[in-house]
């Protein structure tokens, strides 16, 4: 199929990337110089310590819809942010402009903020000896030499595969191909300045299925550091169509208490709620139902959550956290017990603890447990709801109250019966995590949290 993109005069990312490749060392070096210059300026203006984060990324996003090119977006994001410490006071400022005047003004703005904030003994850089010294090769930088015509073709393939799947696929929200490459430099006045670069590529497709009961849409996508690791676009399109079709023919269910099986696409977000509840920021604010939970049971025995920050090609991989602190593999939850909070250096000091190298969050999180095929979990469930879509916020970390909109498949006697939509599932997070009675081997590896299906003993389903 000929995409209209082929007719264009061909400004494309490949040309940009080619030039980039030769300049790669230069760009990292010039970003490092910029960061060093900003740190000097901060010192000159009276900061006794400072930290700077600077980035420069470029990308291409090509979207098609109904067999035609729809948008071509060239992204190009730059800028830096600085935090200065004046005594035990702190101020932050950021800008998209990295010219000498903007540097002076941004530093001045940060120092000015610091003048008006109050002293906080927990402020300051992370301890110097914690800085990442050895930087492992994480293999994160795999530029994709894809130009607009080829990206268009790939997106069209995905969409065509979806539309061809079934006559009930009646419309499309389109398909897209995206590629990004970014350079990032973090530096602080310990003399630590490190550059990293990484790529991220994706192909996604979203289509609409319709029957007498109305329209339903669903999507699928593939994402990776290396274009070689992306799923075939035809498979992406087919999966999007399969998922949209599986939503047709919904029937109501009776309000009541049932076991709930979270599909892998939804289970990652649920585990994210648990991680959020043991993160420093909510703990020192007493804004979590898991305040004081270190060493206590927070999930069913057998559930272990481990972080592996140095995984090669990992989407969440990083050698150091947002404080420059070396990241390291560890368990946050071990056999259901909270083994470590998730801390940066500020929240650690607030809690009288030591940073875990998690300023900015977790880096590649895996759920480990005895894993079984999802069909076996369905048989265990007997009668209940398999949730494959969630909507809305509805999670209160302070109380642990959980109530969200859900869609999925009704299961009876271990067999899928019919789609369900416009229901809510509700419970208490603490009961839900302690009530995990099965983990699937159908692991979704696309996000920062890798988990398979999770079977929860009981939740309230309302319809």
């Amino acid at each position, binding site marked *: 199929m000929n995409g209209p993109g082929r007719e*264009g005069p061909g400004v494309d990312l490949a040309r940009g990337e080619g030039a980039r490749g030769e300049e790669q060392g230069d760009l990292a070096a010039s970003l490092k110089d910029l960061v060093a210059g900003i740190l000097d300026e901060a010192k000159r203006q009276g900061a006794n310590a400072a930290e700077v984060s600077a980035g420069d990324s470029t990308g291409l996003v090509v979207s098609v819809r109904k067999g035609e090119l729809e948008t071509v977006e060239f992204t190009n994001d730059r800028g830096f942010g600085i935090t200065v410490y004046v005594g035990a006071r702190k101020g932050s400022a950021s800008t998209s402009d990295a010219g000498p005047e903007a540097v002076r003004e941004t530093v001045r703005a940060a120092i000015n903020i610091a003048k008006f904030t109050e002293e906080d003994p927990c402020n300051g850089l992370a301890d110097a000896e914690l800085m990442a010294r050895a930087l492992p090769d994480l293999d994160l930088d795999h530029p994709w030499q894809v130009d607009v015509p080829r990206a268009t073709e790939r997106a069209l393939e995905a969409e065509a595969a979806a539309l061809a799947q079934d006559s009930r696929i009646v419309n499309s929200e389109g398909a897209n191909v995206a590629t990004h490459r970014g350079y990032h430099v973090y530096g602080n006045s310990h003399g630590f300045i490190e550059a990293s670069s990484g790529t991220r590529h994706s192909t996604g497709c979203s289509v609409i299925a319709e029957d007498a009961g109305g329209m339903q849409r669903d999507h699928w996508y593939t994402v990776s550091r290396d274009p070689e690791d992306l799923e075939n676009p035809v498979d992406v399109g087919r999966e999007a169509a399969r998922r949209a079709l599986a939503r047709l023919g919904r029937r109501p269910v009776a309000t009541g208490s049932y076991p709930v099986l979270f599909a892998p696409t939804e289970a990652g977000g649920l585990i994210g709620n648990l991680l959020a509840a043991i993160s420093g920021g909510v703990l020192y*604010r007493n804004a979590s139902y898991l305040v004081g939970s270190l060493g206590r049971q927070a999930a069913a025995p057998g559930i272990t959550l481990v972080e592996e920050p140095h995984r090669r090609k990992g989407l969440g991989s990083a050698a150091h956290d947002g404080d420059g602190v070396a990241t390291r593999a560890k368990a946050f939850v071990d056999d259901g017990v909270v083994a470590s909070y998730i801390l940066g250096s500020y929240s650690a000091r607030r809690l009288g603890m030591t940073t875990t190298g998690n300023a900015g969050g977790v880096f590649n999180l895996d759920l480990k447990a005895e894993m079984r095929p999802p069909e076996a979990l369905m048989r265990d469930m007997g009668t209940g709801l398999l949730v494959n879509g969630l909507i809305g916020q509805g999670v*209160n970390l302070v109380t642990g109250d959980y109530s969200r909109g859900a869609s999925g498949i009704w299961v009876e006697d271990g067999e899928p019966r019919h789609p369900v939509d416009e229901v809510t599932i509700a419970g208490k997070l603490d009961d839900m995590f302690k009530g995990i009675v099965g983990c699937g081997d159908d692991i979704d590896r696309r996000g920062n949290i890798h988990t398979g299906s999770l079977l929860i003993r009981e939740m*309230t389903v309302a319809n």
Partner: protein
Amino acid sequence: MTTDDRIDTARRALLDPGEISEGVVSGQLARLTGTDIDTGELFFQVCRDESWTLEDGAVKGGSFSVDRGVGVRAISGEKTGFAYAEDIGPLALGRATDAARSIARTGHGRAPVLTPARTPARYADVDPLTAAPEGDKVALLSRIDAFARGLDPRVSEVTVRISMSRETNLVVATDGTLSGDARPLSRFDVSVIAEQDGRRERGFGGGGGRFDTGWLMDGDAADGYAREAVRMALLNLDAVDAPAGTFPVVLGPGWPGVLLHEAVGHGLEGDFNRKGTSAFAGRLGEKVASPLCTVVDDATLPDRRGSLSVDDEGTPGQRTVLIENGRLVGYLQDKHNARLMGVASTGNGRRQSFAHLPMPRMTNTFMLAGDSDPREIIESVDKGVYAVSFGGGQVDITSGKFVFSATEAYLIDKGKVGPPIRGATLIGNGPEVMAQVSMVGNDLELDGGVGVCGKEGQTVPVGVGQPTLRIDGITVGGTSA
């Protein structure tokens, strides 16, 4: 501030520093003109933000940012080419133009004659960042912290935040559009946690709009937000489990208008309807709600958080009736979707920043008042839920299903408001729920000015509002079956 003043302000802020002359601007527009290109547009923008946060009894942090850049868009039929630069200079602008126009075969056309669209200002040209000295803002936060803690000994945590921004933009386009705008925005938030017998609950209060910080500095508005946050947290300490199942629900006035934002607003945005992906697509003129419902989107309200003198495509902000007495009468349009659907833009073309493409977005969306007494509406319910505050909502515009999550709600028993219930999500289908609106109050209120709307990864400030109303049946996602 007149249209010309706004354009002059924008020129001085955006073109002069990078020495972008009128010749450079018309040269770029000429390069975005040609037989294959329907529209070309340059969007220059600078946004300054400042915020201060108090927690644990002290103002421990503040931040300031400046983001500046230019977005260039070329449209050819249904195709859009887009690029942007964070350096507003002739070289970077030229490169962005090259990239954006690469979607089409281009000639080098003639630059358009630019004509400002005359439109009244919907807010004053003020700078919320510099209106009050830093020391006063910090002192306000500390005062409110002490005030909130003094309201009740059960208040254990207080977080107070003041944030201010001023955005200046300039739009020029090959269709002759020339517009400038300077948009102030300020906001104040109080969040508290109250603790009793080991149980902790949270409460929120806050507000804002397109004005400077005078409203906080000069009166006792900030005290009111603190009082509201403390009241809600204390109330929730006594909350019982919410019911599960389908019940009549009475929604209070103001912020519960998030119902309209989710149940109808998004579904009426032009892009989804042009593409036929909305549950409301192709239903213009049809009955989509009970006859009691008239819903409008109004950018012209003075000083509201969602108000716009001109939108991000240079179209004057306006009032658009979406649903009139239950009948669907209008969609929200930006220029691109309006052109493809053969209608006029409704002034709803909005973008998060120069680095994002504009889309049809809501401004201030609300339901007009009816004639029921709010008390009678509550008394009409035998067993149900009275919900007065919400955390937020979400919609799937294709199936029409939407949710919104209550943060303050009560049981109704035999027409009387009973005990508060724990936060619960309400779920329904837009057109079905709107058909079940059986009573509309005479007490229209707009929200306090804290709404943020997200769509395709872009956020913009919005307003919502409604009178008290009764929905005969909607699913309440509690745990008490």
